[in-house]
């Protein structure tokens, strides 16, 4: 019987030691306690020091807190300068506590005491409470030379150092070697476009300054990507405009096309035969001039137009500029816009669809105005709160609300009613009065069947009072049609509803009329009936055996749930009876 118990204990120990991850209770592998009552009968007290000392260090030299040679380190109980009292836990020790690592530690393996029935090993064991104090731990002292020591590391030589560093290396600040992208004989989509400064024989890439990080400031080094037609905008802050005006190349149009040419196809440095294409400015702009504190002819927009021909690369490149005047002392801010548009002889990328065929969420709504395709727009407010010449586009599926102050330019009390009404209606509609709305995103202007008329509901005269439209509600009804797996959004109809108020009741101020526009999209999609076999969203599925009973008792279950429950109970009873 005793032998069996020992075997059980050993088995448990083996299990614990063999585990890769020790459990929470076994974290006390290392503890600082008085060695005298912990040592087994067969072990001399010096064992620990020799164990921990390793091979190179002599015994008694391990004292991690003895950092001032020749002096006694505070609370360092193993420091020989502090006297032998502390290391022996004597009562004459002047320290209130010992630093971790300065007292003897014992390697122990512990497991919960409740797991053991009886202990009859001849070796020293003890029962200690764990750190939280709620469970008792049964601990055995570890005396296994394999487990108590770290394994001896390899000897490092010149040859195996890179190997070991590669094998054990973890991510670090040492940058991995970056492989240069292999140069191809033609541009691929997204490749930087190479440029060549003939005067200095320097190869570079065409830049498209853009904002980066979470800052709108221009980053001049951003390369332009081949075939990536896009426009970027960023700002430049000048604290000393008078000196920067004529010297900063970013303000001078010439720096965007002069002195360099674009390479038709990319080159590699080994076989250097650049096929250059000159950048042609549409109009030659003037250079910036400083007059007082104003800087004239500053570049505010750069537009490159690139003609390409497949793998034959860039055929033609032209540049247009918009210039502006900036002033401000000491600080002035300039916004610049940089656009690249690529086009081919066969087709251009300038025309956009709003979907093909169904509308895409977030794209502008298309309307037909006098036979031409236009985007539907609503009023936009400008910095002083008045209605702006610019207008917002209505984006598909985005409910919007905007308001602005309409300047009637005449005294409202003296205004001709019908004239005022007409000008407000015009302001709401914008320059292009949307007559018909495209049903799908790819509607063709020549196909009248692809356009829905907009129902416009203007105000009616009431008792001869002058009714002024102050609010426009645009209601768009749409639905998804087609395959369930590939739904296409269609606009079924739209209404422009004007809300009017009598002119007299408007508490107007300074000839201003506050105009509000709201846009509401309504989804009237009809979904197909789900087939019987597929579960519906509101079905409750039985999660445990008692579910049908619980549902039947509470009486809230749907009929299908209780049916399933009855079926389950019946089946159970049948099974029992048959057996």
């Amino acid at each position: 019987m005793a032998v069996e118990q020992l075997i059980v204990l050993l088995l448990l120990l083996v299990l614990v030691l063999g585990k890769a991850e020790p459990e929470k209770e076994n974290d006390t592998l290392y503890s600082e306690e008085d060695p005298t009552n912990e040592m087994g009968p067969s072990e001399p007290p010096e064992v620990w020091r020799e164990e921990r000392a390793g091979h190179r260090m002599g015994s008694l030299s391990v004292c991690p807190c003895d950092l001032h040679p020749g002096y006694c380190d505070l609370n360092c109980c193993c420091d020989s300068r502090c006297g032998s009292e502390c290391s022996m836990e004597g009562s004459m020790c002047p320290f209130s506590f010992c630093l971790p690592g300065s007292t003897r530690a014992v390697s122990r393996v512990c497991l919960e005491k409740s797991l053991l029935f009886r202990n009859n090993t001849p070796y020293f064991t003890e029962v200690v409470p764990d750190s939280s104090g709620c469970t008792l731990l049964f601990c055995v002292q570890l005396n296994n030379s394999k487990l108590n020591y770290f394994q001896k590391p390899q000897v490092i030589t010149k040859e195996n150092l890179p190997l070991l560093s590669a094998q054990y290396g973890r991510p670090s600040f040492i940058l991995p070697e970056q492989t240069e992208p292999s140069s191809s004989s033609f541009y691929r989509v997204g490749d930087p476009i190479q440029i060549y400064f003939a005067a200095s024989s320097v190869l570079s890439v065409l830049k498209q300054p853009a904002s980066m990080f979470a800052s709108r400031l221009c980053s001049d080094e951003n390369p332009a990507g081949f075939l990536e037609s896009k426009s970027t905008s960023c700002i430049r802050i000048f604290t000393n405009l008078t000196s920067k005006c004529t010297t900063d190349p970013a303000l001078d149009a010439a720096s965007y096309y002069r002195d360099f040419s674009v390479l038709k196809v990319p080159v590699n440095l080994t076989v250097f035969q650049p096929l250059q294409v000159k950048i042609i400015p549409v109009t030659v702009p003037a250079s910036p001039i400083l007059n007082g504190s104003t800087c004239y002819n500053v570049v505010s927009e750069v537009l490159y137009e690139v003609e390409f021909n497949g793998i034959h690369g860039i055929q033609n490149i032209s540049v247009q500029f918009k210039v502006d005047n900036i002033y401000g002392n000491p600080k002035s801010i300039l916004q610049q816009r940089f656009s690249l548009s690529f086009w081919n002889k066969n087709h251009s990328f300038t025309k956009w669809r709003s979907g093909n065929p169904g509308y895409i969420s977030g794209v502008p709504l298309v309307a037909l105005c006098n036979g031409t395709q236009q985007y539907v727009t609503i009023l936009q407010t400008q910095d002083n709160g008045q209605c702006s010449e610019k207008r917002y586009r209505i984006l598909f599926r985005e409910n919007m609300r905007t308001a602005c102050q309409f300047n009637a330019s005449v005294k409202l009390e003296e205004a001709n009613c019908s004239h005022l009404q007409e000008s407000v209606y015009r302001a709401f509609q914008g320059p292009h009065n949307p007559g018909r709305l495209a049903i799908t995103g790819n509607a063709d202007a020549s196909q009248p069947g692809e356009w829905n008329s907009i129902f416009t509901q203007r105000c009616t005269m009431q008792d001869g009072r002058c009714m002024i439209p102050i609010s426009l509600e645009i209601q768009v009804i749409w639905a998804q049609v087609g395959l369930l797996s590939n739904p296409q959004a269609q606009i079924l109809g739209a209404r422009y509803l004007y809300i009017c108020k009598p002119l007299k009741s408007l508490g107007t101020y300074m000839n201003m009329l506050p105009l509000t526009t709201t846009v509401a999209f309504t989804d009237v999609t009809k979904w197909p009936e789900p087939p019987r076999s597929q579960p519906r969203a509101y079905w409750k599925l039985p999660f445990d055996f008692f579910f049908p009973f619980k549902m039947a008792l509470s009486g809230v279950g749907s009929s299908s749930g209780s049916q399933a429950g009855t079926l389950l109970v019946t089946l159970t009873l049948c099974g029992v009876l048959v057996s």
Partner: protein
Amino acid sequence: KRSSYAEQPSVRFLHEVLLVGLAEGGGSVGWSSFAACNRLLGARLRLPLVSAREEDVNQDGVMDLLHFRLELPLQSTEQILGVQLMLTFTYQLQRMSTFVMQSMAFLQSSSPVPGSRVIVSGDLRLRQRQPLGHCGLDDRYNVSVINGSSPFAQDYDLTNIVAAYQERNVTTVLSADAGPIWVVGRAPSDPFVIQATIHYPVELIVYQPGFWEMIKFAWIQYVSLLLIFFWICEKIKTFLFQNQVLDAVPVLPVSSVLTHKEHQS
């Protein structure tokens, strides 16, 4: 059906750093561990001293915390009002399904008063929008958070990086309940210091249990009831036949091939 388990993830700092310092007057300075990004920064690039140390406190082979420190040199006239810091990690779980991803910790903090150092201490927490699997290898998100080889500025735009990261169903987030601590007042010669201590805590991971795991509990529930019903039915049967409530004809076994039925005894 969902279950959960606890595991300490194996997290390693990838030593990828993206730092933006928002300077007074609308300007910004920055640094990243990507050469292409630093090229884009141009004059706004400041080369800092970075140090990182990962520690395995309980020596169980899994890293427990990261000490990160960054000293950004500044001119005496420059002042930092805000910082945005991105650190990336590899994050690995292995108890149920082996889940590997590259994740990030994003710290954004600002102060109305120019600061000299920011100290943050927090946890790298797991955010799950969907349960993980119970088996197999899941490396859907084992892709770089920041595309460090790209030469384009848009790939280093924080809004794009965060937007792409938040598309993921499993992410990590730096949760510092106390928030970053700003220390204000910088000596002109001192650098701006960011000090972060990021713990890798044990996570409760929600997962989808497999078929056998579900059937195990279903079986236990079934058997426990079956035994009761079996016993009751047996009693009823015995009662019915012993008291001859129903008409029953005893059939004697004709041949030994027939199975022996209990209720005939």
